[in-house]
């Protein structure tokens, strides 16, 4: 090692001389307390969200408290408080499909359906969300596991698996519409032959519900797979070494290391998939239609864009939908509580 005159490393200047010229903003930011710094970082996000999301929501909420006006320049009437919400829950809203239509009866099962369950937006939506998210999670995990391997052509398999996610909803709808359109696709014949579907699956609530489920799982499992894959890739590989030496079988490694470490990502994926599934609309509209499979968002969209100007009702339905989703989501929030890197 040559001993150079300036000292063993570099020039004679010490770094503070060079360094303390940082500008005022940076210094100000560096000296903020942790909380103040956090708020500063959140500012851009919340500024955008306030303008583009919270402000419209508040306006929409106010809208939901007013009266519908189908004629005249003014789109809304006077304030009616929560009347619109009451109408929704009592089946008196001006929407074509029922939000919920159940009454309590004296005989078993003590609930009486006004219209079949699959004609009630709430239950269609809940059923759809639960079933689709379940299958998407399982399949997504499988796909992520495959993609986490190193193998020749992995990139192309990854492209293949992500492809459905890249398909616009209209096209997704079109594919499954055509597949089960007896004239065009063979899906309808096949399923009928298997005895699963009736002759007009797209016009039958039950068959159409299954078609929509399959279509959604086909597309959205990729979403799950991508997120889970990212989670898998972030796991410190040396932990697997430890576990292997400790005697964990592949399944145990999965259960005790992979799963808990991927759990935060998995929960995020499931959380957002659930919310998405609870808002399903485009897929239904482009396959079986909202009449056959009415979802909550169907009601919102039809109220808002149905041509009859019932904005107040639409707004109220939107908020009621959000409320339902919020209730379901609180289950997740409860889970997040215990997860590292989740909400806490």
């Amino acid at each position: 090692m040559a001993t150079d005159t300036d000292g063993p490393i570099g020039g004679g200047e010490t770094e503070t001389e060079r360094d303390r010229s940082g500008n005022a903003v940076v210094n100000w930011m560096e000296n903020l307390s942790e909380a103040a710094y956090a708020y500063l970082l959140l500012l851009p996000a919340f500024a955008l969200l306030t303008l583009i999301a919270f402000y419209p929501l508040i306006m929409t909420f106010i809208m939901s408290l007013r009266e519908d006006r189908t004629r005249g320049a003014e789109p809304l009437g006077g304030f009616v408080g929560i009347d619109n919400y009451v109408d929704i829950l009592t089946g008196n809203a001006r929407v074509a499909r029922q939000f919920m239509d159940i009454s309590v009866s004296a005989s078993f099962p003590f609930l009486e359906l006004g219209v079949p369950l699959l004609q009630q937006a709430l239950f269609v939506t809940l059923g759809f969300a639960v079933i689709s998210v379940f299958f998407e999670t399982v399949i997504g995990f499988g796909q992520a596991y495959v993609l986490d391997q190193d193998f020749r052509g992995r990139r192309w398999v990854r492209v293949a698996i992500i492809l459905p996610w890249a398909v616009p909803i209209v096209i997704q709808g079109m594919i499954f519409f055509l597949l089960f359109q007896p004239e065009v696709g063979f899906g309808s014949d096949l399923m009928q032959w298997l005895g699963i579907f009736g002759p007009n699956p797209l016009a039958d609530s039950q068959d159409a519900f299954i078609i929509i489920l399959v279509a959604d799982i086909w597309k959205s499992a990729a979403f799950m797979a991508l997120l889970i894959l990212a989670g898998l890739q972030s796991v410190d590989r040396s932990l697997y070494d430890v576990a292997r030496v400790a005697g964990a079988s592949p399944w145990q490694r999965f259960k005790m290391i992979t799963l808990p470490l991927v759990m935060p990502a998995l929960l995020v994926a499931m959380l957002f998939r659930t919310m998405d599934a609870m808002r399903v609309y485009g897929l239904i509209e482009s396959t079986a239609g909202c009449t056959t499979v009415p979802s909550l968002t169907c009601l919102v969209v039809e109220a808002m864009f149905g041509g009859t100007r019932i904005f107040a009702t639409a707004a109220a339905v939107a908020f009621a939908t959000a409320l339902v989703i919020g209730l379901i989501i609180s289950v997740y929030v409860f889970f997040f509580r215990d997860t590292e890197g989740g909400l806490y």
Partner: protein
Amino acid sequence: MFDDNDSAREDDGVRGTDGDGDDNGDSDGVPEHWKRTREMTDGGQPADESRSGILTEDTEAELDRGPFQQWVADSISNPERVYRSMFYTATIFFLFTTLFPFYWLLMVALTPEGQQQDIILTPNGFNPGAFIEVFQVLPFHWYMFNSFVIATASTILVLVIGSLAGYAFGRLEFPGKTPLMLLVLIISFFPPAAFFIPLNDLFNTSFFLLEPITGDGTLYNTPGAMVLPLSAIFMPLAIFILTTFYAQIPDGLEDAARVEGTTRLGALFRVIIPLSAPGVATAGVLTFIAVYNEFFFSFLMTDGQPENWAPILEGILGYQGQYEVMYHLMAASSIIGVIPVAILVIVAQEKIVSGLTAGALKE
């Protein structure tokens, strides 16, 4: 369950010659460096040894004992084979299920107009011209370009703003964290329609400040009218993803960066983000594709003209007539619109991941 180990990976080079590449180790004659190169092109990541993947040779005592004695015997002596074959079965299954609808879509595209009956596994006639007609009927490339710009802009906006928020939520302690996080989440409870009426008013209001930029001072018919709401709507997902991944980076690395001379923000961009590369890239991919394919605002925030930033959706819907639908064109246009994006996104993602984790910080 699949598992993997070093040699399993090395065997990739010889897969296809025979199934039990287990004990032939290096005697397969494939030069070491060659295999290495191939691994690199496949995975894009150096296959370091500590990254034990998933397929391993672990013996599973509880293997199924079926009637195929020979097979079972083989499997027991060489359980890796079972994992391998399970792995292949799964891969093929996934490939089939995801790709079949595309194949079928391709068949629809190839079937001449008006003959879309009883397409099963082959097209009804053969009309590859649809892929050209798509561009003749509408300037489909324009729509693609618009969508591309909008999606790129939204993705960047979401990742930057979302990263700041994700960092705050994931790595800092402050009062009100949980309520604020829930507040972000609440946005995703609402169907997009819930935002529409006020936003429609807002974007059609003329703002003096915007006049030099947009001409009439409104955001309608500009990319902004889509980028802003789409960013806002997909922001919660990105924030949650980023929060999750940022939270997992050990404090020590951030500390090291700060002592080395980064600002707090610098540590985020130089260490936290690169180390969360899989998460960041995933958030980016999800946002990009979601925006690219978004239906609601894409449809309502422009007048549908390609020169007014109408996105791909308007293009696809353009093939839909009042009383007839040009299914073959819609199918063709979807394939054209989707496949390049999916490939681009994946390639970009790999680049991003390797870029973030490798050279990105060179200046």
